[in-house]
């Protein structure tokens, strides 16, 4: 904690008119390039490019034709290149046709169907991703999306087939049940963190696994699954509880997508325009200062995870009520972890999360077609996803790969120190808002020396402070 030598408070204000000597030395072109490297969407696009390249290598490595052509590479290098190009074109065009627009489809309706499939896949991702994003903005790493989605699905699904209610009411009640289930699961982590300081990363990871076993247990109980068979599979959600279809039969797109849009707007208002959101952001940036300013940090902490869990639960509910209709042990798939990716990719901003959810939904939808048409296993989507996030999290790496200059022409390692003080909080619990936008957020304080004068803003006996203070 005292390791963070950043004493930004004491340093004289950097004079804005002074340009860094590096920056002055740069020509106009390189400055343009630098600004390009700074814009986050460029990094995002480049990260996708890197991921596609990595994916290409994997696709080629696993393809038998390519392997065969490689064996006589020196005799016929063009054959290898041609085969490789052919294989990649097939794979990635299948990915695109599965995700956006299928020009090979027999009818116009069929050719836009992929886009709607992308939307279908994106619904739970967006909803759960928004929950994760709220956590990130509030300084909490909620790894528990998976468990919250499962609980949401578990409760919504059960209400969906166990009750008999009129059409509108039934679906609303089932959705509310889903929200409640997720909120309880998130709330456990939130209340424990608020009351005992239990690290939310650990608790949510544990809750994920508990949720899996809980669902497995329930799916063996006849009162719960109501099927009469021994299969660990529940009965189907009543029609009255299903989310209505938006485009009629032939399309799976359902009202969950509208819910996702509304939730995105709601989360934006919550974070940017409401007093509660002000509290969330304050405890995320600096819980100590928030406490000193009279914000009830434990209450806000618990509330963040309740809301985050509720959103993830809603995601699980929409998944069951709109797409799956019945519960199985693997109903949540890897949605929970994908949601983390979505929030990271969206830089914890509501609109960004929405778009990232669409992107990942597209990868899913496209991956299905790619697997069906070219035999490329859908697992590759996980790899693409992971590579994208890693690249976005480390913009300097992306810049290095594409030979773009540093964001501000200075060794960027210096610029982070200004934020480290707050990060340095406590051990594992120092989970801060994920450091994705280092270039943009710390850029403002970038001109400050890390420890120009380490005067006594820290308590002198800080060596004896407990972690967690």
């Amino acid at each position: 904690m005292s390791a963070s030598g950043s004493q930004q408070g004491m340093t004289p204000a950097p004079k804005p008119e002074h340009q860094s000597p590096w920056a002055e030395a740069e020509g106009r072109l390189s400055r343009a390039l630098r600004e390009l490297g700074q814009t986050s969407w460029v990094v995002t696009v480049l990260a996708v490019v890197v991921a596609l390249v990595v994916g290409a290598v994997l696709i080629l490595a696993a393809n038998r034709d390519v392997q065969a052509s490689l064996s006589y590479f020196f005799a016929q290098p063009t054959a290898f290149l041609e085969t490789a190009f052919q294989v990649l074109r097939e794979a990635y065009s299948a990915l695109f046709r599965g995700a956006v627009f299928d020009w090979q489809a027999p009818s116009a309706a069929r050719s836009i169907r992929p886009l709607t499939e992308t939307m279908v896949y994106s619904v739970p991702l967006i909803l759960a991703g928004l929950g994760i994003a709220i956590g990130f903005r509030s300084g909490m790493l909620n790894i528990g999306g998976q468990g919250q989605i499962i609980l949401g699905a578990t409760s919504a699904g059960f209400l969906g087939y166990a009750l008999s209610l009129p059409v509108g009411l039934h679906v609303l009640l089932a959705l509310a049940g889903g929200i409640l289930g997720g909120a309880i699961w998130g709330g456990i982590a939130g209340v424990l963190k608020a009351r005992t300081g239990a690290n939310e990363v650990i608790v949510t990871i544990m809750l994920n696994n508990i949720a899996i076993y809980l669902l497995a247990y329930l799916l063996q109980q006849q009162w719960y699954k109501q099927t009469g068979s021994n299969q660990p599979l529940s009965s189907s959600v009543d029609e009255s509880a299903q989310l209505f279809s938006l485009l009629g039969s032939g399309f799976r797109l359902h009202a969950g997508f509208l819910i996702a849009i509304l939730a995105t707007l709601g989360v934006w208002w919550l974070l940017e325009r409401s007093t509660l959101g002000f509290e969330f952001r304050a405890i995320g940036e600096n819980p100590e200062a928030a406490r000193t300013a009279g914000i009830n940090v434990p209450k806000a902490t618990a509330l963040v995870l309740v809301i985050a869990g509720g959103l993830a639960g809603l995601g699980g509910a929409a998944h069951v009520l709109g797409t799956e209709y019945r519960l199985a042990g693997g109903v949540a798939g890897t949605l929970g972890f994908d949601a983390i990716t979505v929030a990271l990719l969206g830089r914890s901003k509501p609109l960004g999360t929405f778009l990232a959810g669409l992107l990942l939904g597209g990868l899913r939808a496209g991956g299905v077609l790619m697997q069906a048409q070219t035999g490329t296993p859908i697992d590759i989507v996980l790899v693409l996803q992971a590579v994208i996030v890693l690249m976005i999290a480390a913009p300097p790496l992306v810049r290095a790969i594409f030979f773009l200059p540093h964001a501000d022409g200075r060794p960027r390692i210096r610029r982070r120190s200004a934020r480290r003080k707050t990060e340095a909080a406590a051990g594992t619990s120092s989970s801060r808002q994920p450091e994705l936008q280092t270039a943009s957020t710390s850029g403002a304080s970038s001109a400050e020396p890390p420890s120009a004068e380490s005067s006594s803003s820290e308590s002198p006996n800080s060596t004896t402070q407990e972690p967690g203070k």
Partner: protein
Amino acid sequence: MKLELRGVTKRFGSFTANDRISLTVAPGEIHALLGENGAGKSTLMNTIYGLYSPDEGEILLDDREVSFNGPGDAVAAGIGMVHQHFMLIPVFTVTESVALGYEPTRAAGIMDMAVARAKVLEISARFGFDVDPDARIEDLPVGAQQRVEIIKALSRDARVLILDEPTAVLTPQETDELITIMGQLRDSGTSIVFITHKLREVRAVADRITVIRRGAVVGETSPQSTETELAGLMVGREVNLTTAKEPADPGEVSFEVRGLTVLSSADKVVVDDVDLSMRRGEILVIAGVDGNGQSELAQTILGLRTPVAGSILLDDQDLAPLSVKQRLAAGLGFVPEDRSTDGVIGAFTITENYVLDMYDRPPYAGGPGNVALRLPVMREAAQTQAERFDVRMGTVDDPISTLSGGNQQKVVLAREMSRDLRLFVASQPTRGLDVGSIEFVHRTIIEERDKGTPCLIVSTELDEALNLADRIAVMYRGKVVGIVPASTSRDVLGLMMAGVPADEAQAQAATHHTVLAEADEQAEAEENQ
């Protein structure tokens, strides 16, 4: 060993922390490096110690140029440093702390603790330190931790010892002991670089003084210079070392603390049966060495800690049932001790920081149940107050981390004083600020007092206490040792800070003068001439 710097320059981006600094420390000399907070002293020392590498210039040891790739190289070359924030690991023992990085080992890298322990004992014996080699660092008082740091440096045969603001955590009497130790070291041939912003210490200890300002050397002088001369050099203009203020005109008693007892999170008593009573329009300074319960007292008044006994009364209203938010709303103004962790949120804008404890009530919030923020109102209020408090900034939409410490503190003061206050509490309000900002803060506090608000100021700087206070309460180990008038001498206050009751302290101080007090008297005599 002789240490020489030639034109050392260190930049951080566009900011030049050290600008062509040259100085020479002769063998067996105590060389003071004087400069205000933010002048670049620590940067310079970290450069010498190999933590930073200089952008220009050279460092010479005994006339040989050296370049360090890290602190390890500097230590190997004979440079030792006692950092202002001790570089000790709380959970290690003294022996482990001293051995770290230079571990005596047996086969397979297993440590030879007996050898390490013997080394600690040997050095302690040589300088008459009483340090238990098996004690855990976190269990040691600050003074003893500092001695561990010195042992660490000496165990590596440091012949140039850098002490960075070593007296900040000590009572005047402990400072005296440190001065004795420094003398012993000098006599054994060690060169000492002594970094400080306290004029009095410089004159008492140094053989030579180098003054730096805004990263550049502005003069080298002898300890014979007067305090006014040194202050002038340090700040670059004539400084009033004391803030002018009218004598207090205290009204009726409005704030009372009765029998307050507070436990730390580890169930130790940190505030022990404290009684205080304040009148309207007076400044009460809580003095004492850092870590004697003053911060906890202030936090308890705000409501960040719950006392186990006692009561806090503001205008006869018991604060106990009120939350922090309710106390702030009831007219409590609070400036926390550590601005960057408790006072402001660095990534928030100036506007957001300005409303940090008022964001959820009109006029800054609106709608049913005050759920929505009113951004234009917030921005306008921040703009007006920032101008009133002379905050130097770009726009109110900039993150507050772009401001200097002094300007950040002005935003905090502007925020706290924008309400009608019934009590003002500030913990170390000028810590780490430059002289100009200190003057501003002091003036602002005195203005608030003159409006009739009782002001409770926690300060570990005796100068500040004497300058600002109408009365001084000294705390030691959680207890109030005594409450004395602001005219009390430094020696008496120093003894009280070590736990000696006021009357006894008077008697002792009459017979034993500390070095610093003597220097002080001398300074006064000079000024009077």
